[in-house]
């Protein structure tokens, strides 16, 4: 009888323990509201306001001078892509208006971006893809243990003096490590990217990237990408909805403004009239 009682008591204790554990697990992590001090702290950060455009000629140059250490299979693909591009048949990488994603945005974009600081976060807003966006958490959080893969991955950052150091994982395996708009290889998973953003000059932003993509590269690849600043309003970032190009503005039979599909190929190029 005593044995039975002990067994029931133990079972009850186990249930209580499990319930407590489960409640603990589900307890949401609260992002605290920013304080006046948090906002004031932002004033100590370097001035990255304005609009940043990529130095495309340097992107072009690095195709020749700083090729990623591809594994042999990837190297073969890139060699073919570059030959096709030279022959006037550029293979389309960024098709159907899917985002360039990471790290291709930083590596090969031709469009502008801006950088926003808010407490606990740095946000990059870009002009293409359908308005590209990176959220970089600077509130001290770690990466999730198993983040849902996304085009831009999960990014956490910390300030090292006037440099922002960013760590990114959780990028979809389909996202390209691209060296140009016509040459690149899907990262195939397990990619890890570290970046260091800093002003190399008053109006020049450098991003030092180190990309580890073990499925397609034999060792980590380092590259620096250059952005230059404009402050004139003429250069403000504008909306960039990629899918727009698959349509033209029109009017339906009832007089409502609509978008009418236009013929295009997989790369998004309009098909020439016959």
């Amino acid at each position, binding site marked *: 009888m005593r044995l039975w009682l002990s067994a029931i008591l133990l079972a009850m204790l186990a249930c209580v323990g499990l319930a407590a554990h489960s409640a603990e697990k589900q307890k949401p992590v609260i992002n605290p509201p920013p304080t006046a001090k948090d906002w004031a702290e932002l004033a100590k950060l370097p001035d990255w306001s304005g609009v940043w*455009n990529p130095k495309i000629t340097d992107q072009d140059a690095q195709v020749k001078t700083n090729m990623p250490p591809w594994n042999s299979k990837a190297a073969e693909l890139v060699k073919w892509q570059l030959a096709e591009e030279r022959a006037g048949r550029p293979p389309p990488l960024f098709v159907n208006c899917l985002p360039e994603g990471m790290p291709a945005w930083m590596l090969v974009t031709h469009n502008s971006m801006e950088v926003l600081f808010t407490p606990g976060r740095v946000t990059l807003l870009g002009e293409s893809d359908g308005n590209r966006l990176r959220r970089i958490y600077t509130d001290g959080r770690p990466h999730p243990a198993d983040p849902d893969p996304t085009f831009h991955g999960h990014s956490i950052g910390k300030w090292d003096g006037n440099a922002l150091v960013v760590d990114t994982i959780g990028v979809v395996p389909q996202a390209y490590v691209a060296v140009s708009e016509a040459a690149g290889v899907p990262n195939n998973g397990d990619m890890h990217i570290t970046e260091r953003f800093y002003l190399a000059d008053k109006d020049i932003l450098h991003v030092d990237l180190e990309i580890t993509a073990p499925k397609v590269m034999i060792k980590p690849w380092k590259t620096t990408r250059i952005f230059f600043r404009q402050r004139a309003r003429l250069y403000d970032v504008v909306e960039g909805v990629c899918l727009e190009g698959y349509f033209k503005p029109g009017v339906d039979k009832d007089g409502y403004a609509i978008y009418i599909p236009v013929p295009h190929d997989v790369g998004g190029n309009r098909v020439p009239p016959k």
Partner: protein
Amino acid sequence: MKSSLTKVAALSTLLGLAAATYPVAAHHSTTMFDREKTLPLVGTVKELHWTNPHVAIFIDNSAGQGAAPGLWVIELTSPGNLVRSGWTRTIVKPGDKVTADIHPLRDGTKGGALRKITLTDTGQSYTYNIRDQERPNLEQDYGK
């Protein structure tokens, strides 16, 4: 505003002539266009698609010589990149008579990349070259 735009356009034209013009699309390589070849289209603008990722101008090449007669689609860069080169969405309109120098598609179909477009009525030319704008504070150039 108008005079500053004219200045921008003039500057863009100047820069475009000074350096080889590379109409660069926002999202794909452009080597399908043959930059060794320039064809003139002379005719009327039928449609302007001021849309991302690439603006397009449809030109009826009715009076051109050296390029097949009929409707051509001419690709440019993104609206954002064009605005930064001094364009607006109203400088070229359907109905405008134009001359356009284009780099044609290699496959012989009626498509091309814009090198320069000139409005017949005003003589005003527009071009762009985003690789020629790779320095900060470009607004400082506009007063010069």
